[in-house]
């Protein structure tokens, strides 16, 4: 049993040990995990304002200091990306797209708008729809009409959804432009007409001007010159009302082109003269110069070179004043042609040379412009590069996040697996403990059963000497032919034996019964040794002998010992006193004899007699041990010498332990 138990214990500690280490693993890793996660997701809502602020500042700064503006956007983007604040990130891209567009970097513009849209869509920021127009514009600039068309259509749809009229017009115009460029003239006209319809409805003059102009362009493309001119005129009229000279002149230019294509110099001269008058009245010097050139062209067509030259000189004079090299150059070129046509070769050559010089300076000017633009573009490119780096960073961090997420997932899986493992270990442990306990208990039960068996065999023994001696006594009566005595003795003996046998089946008998047995036993022993001792047997009357239970035949062996080893050897008649008393829940049985005492009794034995052992007391010792083992009963036996001779045996029985029968 102990072996099994040791194994169980060993296994228990083993499991316990492994469990502890598991527990530590579990504790440490996910804790760190959590930390690294919080680093990313924490504080997102503390900095968006800063990013927004930067973006706003950039917007304002762009015109004057585009580089700084870009830096700001960059910073904003950095914050937005680092803190995973998506709205700001998208806003930054949008702003970048705008900057790109303004710097004619349509490709970048398109890309950045795309990124912004992607984020907006993902996050459901549907209110920001203007960006569809912007990206459409970029696509249009890149001649990517199908995408332009798509974005514009979406824009228009959103504008309609929001009943935003001006946006609707913007959409229609933009779509019209794309269709026009794709030569889808019918569709183009439809959108422009729709725009015109809306603008007329809300009486937006500027809009009407534009819409008519656009319609004119469509008709021109359809070679409906007459209708085209009508639309241009209509646009022009409205423009004049709102003093939109640019649109007025646009119409003049467009109409003039139509006449030029028709080689309709009369109408052309008339139109340009009208324009010239209008612009002179409006003091649009540059336009006057341009009108004069157009006029001169038509004069040349009519071979009216003199008028042409006059008009051109007039134009050059104005251009000189305004410093309008472009117009001057154009005028000089046409002038050279006019001189040539009028046979003034020298003048023509001189003007041509002048024209070349002007062209050259114009070219240089344009180059300079281009250069500065390129510079801006480069700057932008740098910024873009930075951004793409940032983007990569972001992708990386996204990847890291993804990785961390996966790691976390794995971790969680691991933890759950570990949990299962731990639980199964605990379960195993419990099973083990229960098994160990059951084994222990069954062993204990077995032990107890064994002890009970031993106990039964022990208490079944009445000293055989006593029995045979009793029978001897009977035999002696028979031999004396004393029928009455033999019968009486036999009856007494039978009663005693019956009681002993009956009670030997029980673990406990009432004290009353034990007293019966003892008095019977004393009577019989006294009968046999009546010449050796007298006796008294006293029981405290306060004891409830019926309710108090003791192991059977517990006291008899001590009485037997007193008679056989003490009193029997005494020369004179001795006395045996047996008393049962109660005090403090303790029953005390006292057996006092004034026999020869233990020591002398032992001395009297010869070598030959010592071979034979006294079994009675050994028997009762074993019984007492087992009884107190099984029933946890408190039994005290004290043996000491009596004065002057003899032995005192005190058996103390703690009442509590024996008061109930079913212990």
């Amino acid at each position: 049993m102990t072996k099994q138990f040791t194994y169980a214990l060993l296994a228990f500690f083993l499991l316990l040990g492994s469990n502890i280490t598991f527990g530590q693993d579990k504790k440490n890793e996910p804790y760190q995990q959590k930390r690294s996660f919080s680093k990313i997701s924490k504080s997102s809502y503390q900095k968006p304002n800063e990013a927004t602020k930067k973006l706003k500042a950039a917007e304002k700064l762009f015109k004057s200091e585009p580089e700084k503006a870009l830096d700001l956007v960059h910073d904003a983007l950095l914050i937005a990306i680092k803190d995973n604040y998506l709205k700001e990130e998208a806003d930054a891209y949008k702003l970048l797209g705008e900057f790109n567009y303004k710097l004619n970097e349509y490709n970048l513009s398109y890309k950045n708008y795309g990124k912004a849209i992607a984020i907006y869509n993902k996050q459901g920021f549907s209110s920001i729809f203007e960006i569809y127009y912007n990206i459409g514009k970029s696509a249009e600039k890149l001649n990517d009409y199908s995408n332009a068309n798509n974005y514009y259509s979406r824009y228009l749809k959103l504008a309609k959804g929001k009943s935003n009229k001006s946006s609707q017009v913007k959409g229609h115009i933009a779509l019209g432009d794309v269709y026009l460029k794709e030569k889808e003239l019918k569709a183009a006209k439809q959108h422009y007409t729709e725009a015109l319809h809306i603008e007329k409805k809300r009486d937006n003059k500027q809009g009407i001007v534009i819409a008519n102009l656009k319609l004119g362009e469509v008709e021109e493309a359809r070679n409906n010159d007459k209708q085209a001119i009508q639309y241009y005129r209509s646009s022009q009229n409205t423009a004049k009302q709102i003093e939109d000279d640019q649109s007025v002149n646009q119409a003049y230019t467009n109409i003039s082109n139509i006449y030029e294509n028709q080689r309709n110099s009369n109408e052309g001269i008339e139109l340009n003269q009208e324009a010239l008058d209008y612009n002179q009245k409006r003091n649009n010097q540059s336009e006057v110069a341009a009108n004069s050139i157009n006029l001169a062209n038509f004069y040349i067509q009519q071979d009216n070179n003199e008028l042409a030259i006059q008009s051109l000189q007039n134009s050059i004079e104005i251009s000189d004043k305004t410093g309008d090299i472009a117009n001057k150059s154009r005028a000089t070129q046409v002038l050279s042609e006019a001189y040539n046509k009028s046979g003034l070769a020298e003048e023509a050559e001189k003007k041509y040379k002048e024209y070349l010089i002007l062209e050259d300076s114009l070219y240089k000017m344009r180059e300079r412009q281009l250069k500065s633009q390129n510079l801006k573009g480069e700057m932008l490119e740098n910024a873009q590069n930075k951004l793409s780096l940032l983007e990569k960073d972001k992708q990386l961090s996204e990847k890291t996040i993804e990785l961390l997420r996966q790691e976390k997932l794995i971790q969680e899986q691991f933890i759950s697996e570990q949990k299962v493992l731990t639980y199964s270990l605990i379960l195993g442990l419990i099973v083990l403990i229960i098994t160990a306990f059951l084994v222990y208990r069954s062993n204990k039960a077995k032990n107890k059963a064994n002890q009970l068996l031993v106990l039964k065999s022990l208490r079944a023994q009445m000293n055989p000497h006593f029995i045979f001696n009793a029978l001897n006594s009977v035999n002696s009566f028979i031999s004396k032919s004393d029928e009455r005595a033999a019968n009486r003795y036999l009856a007494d003996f039978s009663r005693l034996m019956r009681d002993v046998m009956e009670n030997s089946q029980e673990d406990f008998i009432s004290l009353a019964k034990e007293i019966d047995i003892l008095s019977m036993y004393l009577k019989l022993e006294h009968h046999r040794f009546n010449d050796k001792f007298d006796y008294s047997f006293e029981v405290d009357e306060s004891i409830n002998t019926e309710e108090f239970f003791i192991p059977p035949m517990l006291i008899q062996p001590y009485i037997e010992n007193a008679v056989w080893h003490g009193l029997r050897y005494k020369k004179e008649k001795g006395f045996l006193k047996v008393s049962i008393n109660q005090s403090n829940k303790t029953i005390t049985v006292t057996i006092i004899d004034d026999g020869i005492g233990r020591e002398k009794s032992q001395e009297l034995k010869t070598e030959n007699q010592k071979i034979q052992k006294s079994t009675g007391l050994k028997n009762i010792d074993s019984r007492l041990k087992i009884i107190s083992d099984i029933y946890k009963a408190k039994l005290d036996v004290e043996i000491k010498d009596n004065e002057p001779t003899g032995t005192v045996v005190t058996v103390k029985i703690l009442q509590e332990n024996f008061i109930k029968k079913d212990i």
Partner: protein
Amino acid sequence: MELKAIIVEDEEASRITLNNYLTKYCENVTVLDMADSVQTGLIAIQKHNPDVVFLDIEMPYGNAFDLLESLDKVDFEIIFVTAYRDYAIKALNLSAAYYILKPIDIDELVVAVAKITANKKAGEDIFHTKILMDNIKNSNIQHKKIVLPQMDGFEVVNVNQIIRAEANDNYTNFYLTNGKKYLVSKTLKHFDELLSEFDFIRVHKSHLVNLQFITKYIKGKGGQVKMSDESIVDVSPIRKKELIERFR
């Protein structure tokens, strides 16, 4: 034939009982004296020189063997009286001493008295007591002697002289190291009980062998054992295990 008897018995009731029965059922026995202890017993024996002493084994102040040790010479027959089968019985049996158990069985008493009477008539030496005393004093188990009653008397042999014993109906054949063979008028069971404390083992219903003299074990269902005198003894299958255990 008249027998002078003395009773040594500590209990009065037992003395009276024995005296009464002897008077009633053993007419050739005359109880000259009764003693209640070893000391008084010795005095009585010396005084009366009895033919037979009825001697209780357990008495206070010394037992039967103490009494016998105190005597220079035992020239009387003894019938031991004992209350129950104790350690002394084996010694008594080994020397084929006479004994009766208490409570006294009258038939047993009569038989014992009859045997002693017969011995007295035949003028047999009284040597059981000597052997008994030898055996009791001799603690070395191998030097103990056994009395083998035969049809015509007794044979005393050392226990370590016996090679084996074989059942022969209600008799037993003893084979000794000196090559002699005795037919003994007691059952093999009787000797099995007596000799089991020595190195004897009942290998078969009909065979009791001294382990000291086994020279060989021959395998078989139960197998056989060869003894030092070349005799071969069957071993019954149920005793085989016990035999082999003894050799471990």
